[in-house]
C-alpha cells in the first residue's frame, strides 16, 4: 500500500497528490512515470511523476479526472492509500544545454512538463514556459514555474488571464519576435501537441512531446502502447514516453486512444475541455 500524504485540487477536476514511495522518489528522473492501481479490482494506468522529495520519500502526481480510474483517484484524500505504485518507468527526458528551451504545458500537461522544465534550467538553458489553460483556473503551477524559468507566459482561451489565445499562437509570436528558440517540449492533449509540432516544423526547431497511450504493464511486455514514430512501431512505455514531435503519427495515437472509449462512458462526459477547444479550433482552420 502506498499512503497519500496530501491531496489538494489545483483546478476543477485536477488534483495534486503527494504519495509515499521512497524508492521511486530516489530514482526518478524528469520525464519518467509510474503505473498505479487503486485497489484489487482496479486497472493499471500510467501517470507522469511531476515532482519528488527524497528526504520525505514522496512523489507528486497531478491527475485530471477523465476516466473511471482517474475520477476514482481524485475522490481520494490524505491518509487514504493506493494499492500499487510501480516505477520509475520509461526513459528520462533527454536533457542538454540547447540554448533557449521552451516548455509548453496544456491543462494538466503542465504538471508533466514541469519536472523537465526544471531539468532544462539546471542544464543551463534560458528557459521559457508557456502555460495553457482554457480559463484562468486551469493555468497550473504558475508560481512554481516562475520560481524556475526565466520567462513564463500564461495563456487562456478566453483571455481571462494572461495571453488570450492558444499556446501555439503564443509560441509563434515568440518565434516571430526574433527570439532564437533551440528546443521545444510540448505536453498536453494530442491535438495541442500536434499543433505545436506543425508550428515548429517550418522553423526546424527540435520539438519533443510526451505520449500517453493506453498501457497495461509499462515494461514492454504487452505492446498495447505502440505508436508509430518515423514510420516505425515503438512501445511508448520503454522506448519513450518522449519522442520527436515531427515524426509522431498523431492520428494513429488519437485513434488508438479511443479503443476503449465505449467502455469509458464517463470519459466522454468529462473529456478534457482543452482538448475539445483545440479540436474545434483546428477544424476551423486555426
Amino acid at each position, binding site marked *: 500500500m502506498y499512503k497519500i500524504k496530501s491531496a489538494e485540487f489545483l483546478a476543477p477536476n485536477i488534483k495534486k497528490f503527494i504519495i509515499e514511495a521512497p524508492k521511486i522518489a530516489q530514482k526518478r528522473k524528469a520525464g519518467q512515470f509510474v503505473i498505479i492501481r487503486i485497489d484489487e*479490482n482496479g*486497472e493499471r494506468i500510467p501517470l507522469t511523476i511531476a515532482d519528488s522529495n527524497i528526504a520525505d520519500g514522496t512523489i507528486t502526481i497531478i491527475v485530471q479526472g477523465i476516466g473511471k480510474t482517474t475520477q476514482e483517484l481524485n475522490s481520494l484524500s490524505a491518509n487514504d492509500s493506493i494499492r*500499487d505504485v510501480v*516505477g520509475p518507468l520509461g526513459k528520462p527526458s533527454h536533457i542538454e544545454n540547447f540554448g533557449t528551451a521552451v516548455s509548453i504545458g496544456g491543462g494538466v500537461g503542465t504538471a508533466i512538463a514541469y519536472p523537465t522544465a526544471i531539468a532544462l534550467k539546471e542544464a543551463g538553458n534560458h528557459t521559457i514556459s508557456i502555460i495553457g489553460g482554457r480559463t484562468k483556473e486551469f493555468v497550473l503551477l504558475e508560481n512554481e514555474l516562475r520560481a524556475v524559468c526565466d520567462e513564463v507566459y500564461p495563456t487562456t482561451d478566453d483571455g481571462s488571464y494572461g495571453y488570450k489565445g492558444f499556446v501555439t499562437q503564443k509560441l509563434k509570436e515568440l518565434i516571430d519576435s526574433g527570439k532564437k528558440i533551440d528546443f521545444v517540449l510540448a505536453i498536453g492533449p494530442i491535438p495541442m501537441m500536434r499543433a505545436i509540432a506543425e508550428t515548429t516544423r517550418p522553423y526546424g526547431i527540435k520539438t519533443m512531446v510526451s505520449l500517453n497511450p493506453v498501457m*497495461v504493464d509499462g515494461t514492454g*511486455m504487452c505492446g498495447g502502447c505502440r*505508436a508509430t514514430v518515423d514510420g516505425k512501431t515503438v512501445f511508448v512505455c520503454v522506448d519513450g514516453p518522449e519522442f520527436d514531435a515531427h515524426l509522431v503519427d498523431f492520428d494513429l495515437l488519437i485513434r488508438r486512444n479511443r*479503443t476503449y472509449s465505449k*467502455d469509458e462512458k464517463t470519459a466522454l462526459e468529462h473529456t478534457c475541455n482543452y482538448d475539445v477547444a483545440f479540436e474545434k479550433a483546428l477544424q476551423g482552420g486555426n
Partner: protein
Amino acid sequence: MAELTKKERMKIPRQPMPEQDGNVRSGNFKEVNLGFTEELALLEAQRCLQCPKPVCISGCPVGVNIRDFIGLISEGKYAEAAAKLKEDNALPAVCGRVCPQEEQCESKCVLGVKGEAVAIGRLERFAADFERNTLGIRTPQIKPKTGKKVAIIGSGPSGLSCAGDLIQMGHDVTVFEALHAIGGVLLYGIPEFRLPKEIVKAEVDALSKLGVDFQPNSVIGFTDTIDELLTSGYDAVFIAVGAGLPYFLNIPGENLNGVYSANEFLTRVNLMKAYRFPEFDTPVFDCKGKNVAVFGGGNTAMDAVRTSKRLGAAKANIIYRRSENELPARAEEAHHAKQEGIEFLFLANPLEFIGDKDGWLKQVKLQKMELGEPDASGRRKPVPIPGSEYLMDIDMAVIAIGNGSNPIIQKTTPDLSYTKRGNIVVDPDTMKTSKKGVFAGGDIVTGGATVILAMGAGRTAAKAIDEYLKEGK
C-alpha cells in the same frame, strides 16, 4: 486391494481425464479438466509397472521420482505421494496441468512402446490437488539459516522453483516482481480455464510460509539495478525475467484498433480479469458476436483463441502458416480447442490488416501457402502460392507468434554477456552468467519455452547458487 500381476496391470486401459463438456465450457472460464477421482487415480497408478530402472524420470526436466510417487498413490498414500513430488518439484499442481508430459516423462514410459503410457501428469495433478484440498499445502523442513541472501528477479516458474529450493537450503530469498501480483506467466499468460489462479496463489502462499519474501511492483533495472542489489547485501542474483517482448508480424495495419499481442490480450483477461468487466475495471475488446482470428499455432495461440470464444466470439479462428502436422501446440490443447468450436485455418499467412475510416480492424489479407523443404527447425517450410491472396472479414486479431527478450535488464546491466537476440549467455550446467554472483535461467536464456523447462533451470541455478554461496566462486 489385492496385488495385481504384471499382466493384469497391463490390461488396465489408460484412464481418460474427466472434463467439462466442450459446448458448456466454451461459455465459462472454469477449469476444463476436472481431475481424476480417487478411483481413476488408483486404477491409473496400478498401470505403472514400477520398473527397477525407471526411464520416465530421464524425461523430466526437474527429475521427479515418478515411479515412487505413483507407487505411493497405488497404495492409497496420497499425501506421501505429494510429499515425494515436492522433493523435486516446487509446483506439482501447476506442472500436472501445464507440462507437455507426452513429450517428456510419458514419452519415455515403457508402456508407450506397445500401448499407452501411464498418465503421469494426471496422477501428479491428483496427488498435488489431494494435498491442497484435504490437508492444505504442507511446508517441508528447511535447513538451518546460512545468513546468505539471494535476490531472484521474476516470480514466474523459474524464479519460484529457484526460490523454493534456495529457501529449503537455508538461504534468505527475496523475489522481485515487476507486476502487482506474484506468479509471472502462470498469472498473466495461462488462462484460468487451464490453470486456476487460486492454485498459483496457494503455491505462492506456501513459499511465503517458508519465508520467501515477495516484493511486487519492483522493476529491476529501474527500481533497483542488479549492481545495487549486489552492493546492498544480496550475495547472489538469479535473473528469471522471462521473455517478455511480444513479436509482431510487421505487416501493414498492425497498429489498427482491435489488433492485440497475445501478451496484451491474455494479460487483460487473466491478470486484470477483464472477463469480469465491469466488476473489474480493465476492459478488453468486446468479442461478443465478433469474428476473431488468432495468428500462430502454439499453446499461447490456443489459449488466446479459446479465451476469445469464452468472451463470446461468434467465430474464433486459428490461422497458421504451416499445416496441422507442424502445429507446435500440445495435441491436447488443439483437441480441446476443436471441441470448443475453434476453427483452424492452415497454410495461410497474413499479409496486411485493413481497417475502416476510424481505424478499426475489418479485414485481413491472407495468402495461401504450401509446404516446401524442411527448414532449420526441421519442419517443412511454408512457401507462398503466388496469386492466392484473398480477404477475410475479422474484427479482432491476436498475434501469438512468440516473444523476444525484454530489453530492460540488458539496458541497465550492460556488463552481462548477451546473444544477438538479447538472451543472457550462461553456462548450461550452472546457469552462471559472465558476471560474478549473477545467474540466469528460463525464457530470458532459452527464448520462449515451457513452464517445466524454466523450472528445471531454476533448480539447476539453485544448486549452483548454493555451491557458490558456500565456496564463494
